[in-house]
């Protein structure tokens, strides 16, 4: 397929899609309308189960099974990256030389690292109350660890990051999610149904039944997954070299 032909194909397809999309957009309920039947029911269900953050309730209670699917995609992506970016036989590891970092930058990185890590944990822990949750907090916590690479050097990061441990953590968190779901089955109701624990007092950390548990499991999985992913990429970009040495 030549370049010119492909461009034509894109132009025709894009124009068709644009026309259809515009026609559909003009027919959609106007932006900001007042008719949200599903949303109103979701809010009602969440309040009846004492979960202050309705979005967390939708994710970890009303549509918990859907979130299990999302977690599976995440897990599969991590495994796929691991398989694609493993060290092959004709590659070898070269220890990178330490990078010099200006002193204010290094100090900033070492100072902000614990703050960012704590913020990540705070965002996970308050997931069922205020904006936040396992997905966001996990990414923040995992990113904060990599300040060690940015502000100090790669070997410092490697010392606090035994990748095998994080891989195990990833698997354990995924199983914890499934086990929490199965526990509901043993309790005599449906898979992942939020009937196991008391709903607690509205707007406290332990409210919402199994929502905080599932939230914590997702937080742990996302944090471990991001650490493992970045470890694979850093290995490739920094350490692993090809051929028989340079």
């Amino acid at each position, binding site marked *: 397929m030549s370049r010119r032909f492909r461009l034509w194909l894109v132009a025709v397809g894009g124009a068709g899609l644009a026309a259809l*999309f515009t026609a559909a957009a003009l027919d*959609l309920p106007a932006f*900001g309308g007042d008719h949200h039947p599903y949303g109103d029911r979701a*809010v009602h269900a969440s309040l009846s189960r004492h979960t202050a953050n309705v979005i967390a309730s939708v994710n970890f209670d009303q549509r918990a099974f859907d979130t299990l699917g999302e977690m599976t*995609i995440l897990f599969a*992506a991590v495994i796929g990256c691991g398989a694609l970016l493993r060290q092959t036989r004709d590659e070898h590891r070269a220890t990178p030389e330490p990078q010099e970092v200006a002193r204010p930058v290094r100090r900033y990185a070492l100072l902000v690292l614990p703050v960012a890590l704590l913020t990540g944990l705070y965002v996970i822990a308050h997931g069922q109350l205020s904006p936040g949750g396992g997905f966001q907090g*996990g*990414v923040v916590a995992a990113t904060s660890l990599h300040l060690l690479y940015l502000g100090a050097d790669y070997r410092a990061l490697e010392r606090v990051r035994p990748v095998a441990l994080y891989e195990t953590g990833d698997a354990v968190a995924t199983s914890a999610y499934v086990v929490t779901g199965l526990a509901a089955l043993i309790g005599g109701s449906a898979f992942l149904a939020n009937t196991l624990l008391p709903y607690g007092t509205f707007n406290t950390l332990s409210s919402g039944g199994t929502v905080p548990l599932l939230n914590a499991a997702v937080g742990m999985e996302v944090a471990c997954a991001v650490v493992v992913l970045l470890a694979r990429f850093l290995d490739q970009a920094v350490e692993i070299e090809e051929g028989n040495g340079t």
Partner: protein
Amino acid sequence: MGVLPYLVAGWVFLTGCYGLATSRNLIHAVGCLSVCQAGTYVLLLAVGYRHDATAPVFSDLKPGSRPVVDPLVQALTLTDVVVGATVTALLLALVVQISKRHGTVDPDELSELRG
């Protein structure tokens, strides 16, 4: 105002598609794919918006005191943002692997190699 958010969502999606089709570098193509994803997020959240409403998060709000927007679309978008990032990582891993095997990341050169 009535349809502007939908049109912006469509524009973002279509520009991403255009970049994807005309890209000369697979890493650039992965970036364009994340632009496409952004378009879908904008569309979903625009559908769930309600005028003069606030977020359905009741940690600092008395339930029922203000109208709230649709939480369902937000839950869909929120998980996809993070999962989308890991899928981007998977695609980038594929690109790295392609560059190892074939020594190029230009899709046109790659199809020449095959044919």
